[in-house]
């Protein structure tokens, strides 16, 4: 019986030990009775065995140390790029707007302080002028016990007509 593609699939899986029990029994029965399938099996098995002739590469003796050195260089170099990356990732647009607003507030405050300083001192002077009478009379007012008494002193009829005569 000619060997089919399906047979080769089964033989390949058989060689790899990947056939299920039922398929394994069917194939082994055929291997006993069918010379062609047995020859195909032997060809595939021996072809696979030829791969053992491929040279096995060995890494250089310093492979591990070279790998660790490269790792050390990489991990030492990591912080710097990560900082610049972090800087690059900052929301510069938003920050520049916030900075501009901050500068504007600062300038406004400085200008306000510059122009509001004399105004405040002017209003202080006005208050002094308004209260000048009280300040002048302050030594007398200190003897008054309360403000109502001082107000009564200001009334012209408190002392009758004697004051004027």
């Amino acid at each position, binding site marked *: 019986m000619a060997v089919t*593609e399906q047979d*080769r*699939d089964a*033989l*390949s*899986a058989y*060689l*790899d*030990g*990947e056939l299920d029990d039922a398929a394994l029994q069917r194939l082994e029965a055929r291997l006993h009775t069918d*010379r*062609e399938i*047995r*020859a195909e099996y*032997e*060809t*595939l098995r*021996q*072809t*696979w065995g*030829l*791969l053992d*002739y*491929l*040279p*096995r*590469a*060995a*890494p*250089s003796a310093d*492979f*591990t140390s*070279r*790998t*660790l050195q*490269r*790792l050390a260089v*990489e991990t030492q170099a990591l912080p710097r790029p990560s900082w610049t990356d972090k800087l690059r990732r900052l929301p510069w647009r938003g920050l520049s707007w916030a900075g501009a607003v901050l500068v504007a507030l600062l300038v406004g405050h400085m200008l306000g302080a510059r122009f509001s300083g004399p105004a405040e001192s002017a209003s202080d002077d006005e208050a002094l002028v308004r209260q000048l009478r009280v300040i002048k009379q302050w030594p007398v007012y200190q003897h008054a016990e309360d403000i109502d008494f001082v107000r009564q002193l200001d009334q012209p009829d408190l002392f009758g007509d004697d004051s004027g005569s």
Partner: protein
Amino acid sequence: MALASGSSSQMALRDPDIRLMLRVRDADDSAAFADLVELYNHRLVTVLQHLVGSTEEAEDLAQEAFLRVFRGRKRYHPKAKFSTWLFTIANNLALNVLRSRQRKPVVPLNLRDSGPLGPRPQEQLVQDRGPQPQHQLAHQELSGVIRAALDTLNERQRVAVVLNKFEDMNYAEIAAVMGLTTKAVKSLLSRARDNLRIALKDYVQMDRSGEMRI
């Protein structure tokens, strides 16, 4: 989550390589990483050399694979054997190299190996035919012939063959590394065996009973 962490810890207990990798992940333990490099460098370079052909390139790729393991350590979750993860990374690197070669073919320097002025690997196989080539060819020459036969496989067949033959991986493990189903792996290996059978048929001789004659 508890189930996942439970199965991870069970897996870690069974696989000492996973325990090493967890030390790398959790404590940036460079000694554990060095142990992993020491444990796997030979196997990784062997597999990569069979895939890309050159030992120097295989070493560079192996080194890059290990560095990628370290860089990706914080994302590591032990779902399978550590070797499966490592060989998945290595496989991706090797496939990148092979595909890049297909886009930018390397100009052959040795006219005997390939190229328009010399015989191609398959032509070389035909030229080297003889009545009993295994007796006539020196070991090194036979290696060259088999290497050429391996190169006739497509990249996925080659990866499957190399992992099966040299890493002794079963279909499920190969499927995990290559991101395929086990059925696809079975088919890949069957096609690969058939291609190798054709490429190397003159190096395997059978007698009438179906037994091999050396």
